[in-house]
């Protein structure tokens, strides 16, 4: 595995009125790794993803991708450079069929439209090719959303809660399918997730967010066993003596 840094975020800060959504976030993302982003709601995970993909412009700090400063650039420019994303609420063309959704994406990527069937098959969506996207079950919509992001053959893929809304007994099947495709393509992944079993199973590295900052970062077992992470993110009560003061409180 290469240790080349693909994305480097330095001192990212984002504030909405009095609410600080991201405070001094600095992190390097290494090529061909899978990073799990965990944290409670409002911890800053999605804000971080939104800043990386151009949806939000950081108030302070810089983001470089393969050595190029991409801070505050338009989402379409960042996508063209090789960073794609899926969304917590799938962003589909709801009046079009699954195949037509992919054909739109292939058209933008200047790829042959005939690849639509191949991609649908990769993600196990062949049976839904002619179904209107707006009528698809949530798990299928998630997969279609991710497949759209993969059309441009990105170098980095950001997945925002890929299993939210998916039935609990289908979560691992959905993630297995997605990770098989992504690993085969050699794509670097950051995914936001609340299910710690998913995070432990699929991540090479975990970034734990709390109150807009990174509370802990490292190997999954190290981060998920971290006392502060267990108390403030996973929500496990700790013995009174081990109760540390809340970070940033």
């Amino acid at each position, binding site marked *: 595995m290469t240790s080349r840094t693909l994305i480097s975020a330095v001192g990212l800060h984002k504030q909405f009125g009095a609410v600080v959504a991201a405070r001094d976030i600095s992190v390097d993302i290494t090529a061909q790794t899978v990073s799990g982003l965990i944290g409670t709601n409002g911890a800053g995970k999605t804000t971080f993803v939104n800043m990386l*993909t151009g949806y939000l412009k950081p108030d302070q700090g810089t983001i470089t991708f393969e050595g190029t400063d991409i801070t505050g650039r338009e989402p*379409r420019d960042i996508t*063209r450079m090789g960073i794609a994303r899926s969304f917590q609420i799938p962003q589909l*063309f709801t*009046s*079009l069929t699954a195949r037509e959704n992919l054909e*739109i994406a292939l058209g*933008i990527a200047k790829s042959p*439209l005939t690849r639509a069937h191949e991609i649908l098959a990769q993600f196990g969506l062949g049976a839904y090719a002619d179904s209107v996207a707006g009528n698809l079950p949530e798990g299928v919509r998630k997969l279609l959303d991710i497949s*759209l992001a993969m059309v441009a053959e990105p170098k980095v893929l950001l997945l925002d809660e890929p299993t939210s809304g998916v039935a609990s007994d289908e979560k691992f099947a959905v993630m297995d399918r997605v990770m098989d495709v992504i690993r085969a393509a050699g794509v670097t992944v950051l995914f936001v997730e609340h299910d710690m079993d998913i995070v432990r199973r699929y991540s090479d590295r975990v970034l734990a967010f709390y109150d807009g900052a990174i509370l802990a970062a490292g190997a999954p077992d190290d981060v998920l066993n971290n006392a502060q992470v267990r108390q403030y993110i996973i929500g496990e009560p700790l013995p009174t003596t081990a109760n540390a003061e809340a970070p940033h409180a």
Partner: protein
Amino acid sequence: MNTTFNPQRTGMVAAAYTVVALAVGYAFPQWQFLLAVALSKGLVALGLVLLLRSGLASFGQGLYYCAGAYSVGMAMTYLEWNNLVVLLVGATLLAAVLGGILGFLLARYRDIFFAMLTLALSMILYGLLMRYPVLGGSDGFNVYAPVIFGEKLSRPALFAVTVILTGVTVWAIQRYLQSRAGRLGPAIKDNEVRVEYLGASARRNIHLNYILAAGLAGFGGGLSSFSIGHIDPDMAFWTTSGEFVFIAILGGTRNAYAPLLGAIVLELIRSLAYQYAPNTWQVVMGASMLALIVFLPGGLISLTQRALEKRRARQHAQEAGL
């Protein structure tokens, strides 16, 4: 959205339309004027279809329709130009350039803001034309038969030129709708955020469609000025723009042929209503629109889709031996 790109079929449909329109026009010469005006207005509605497919309604296409017609009228009056090709190319280019400039502003807006801005711009032109005698004032200009290859075009020849040029234009726009850029319209209407996150610029695509719509309206304005023989500021008035929206909704937005169908049916309804109910023809028009929205929300062109689906269902049933 019809995603199957079939240039041969597109060409055949356009050719069939041209042959049928010419045949009807020459079989019933009294209908030539009605058809020529309808087809010219259909071209304006065709541009509107490009915008409607992206989720944008323009209530100001009269601006470009009028600009195209006035470029013809003023070139004839002040420059004594009368060559058909020069006048039509000039009308189209003038409208497209104007659309290109205004598009920088309009492509930033959506929904009611876009609709109201387009309406406001067309009313500015209307006001200017009414105010300044050099622009013809409220009387406008007369337009005479154009010349091609040194020959003045007769009425039947002008009808034929209108039908053929409309056929070629519709064929070209249908091909555009099936191109990568053309297919983005329905995607933008559905989800602009996803379009941006796939690497395309929704605003640029809307700007391009706006320029094409302006060019088509200018072209339609130029053609209709030859058929009608007179132009006046009412061409830029908001009710004229509203009529183009009516035509686009009547025909549907499924493909490039729909607005021509809408334009012809509208002119027929209007002519018949005016003939048989001269005092209440607007009521007939309103009732027609109401019935259409309730029973055919996809426009008249959705009837052909329904017929095709029925035929396919019958074929499948036959193949299955049912």
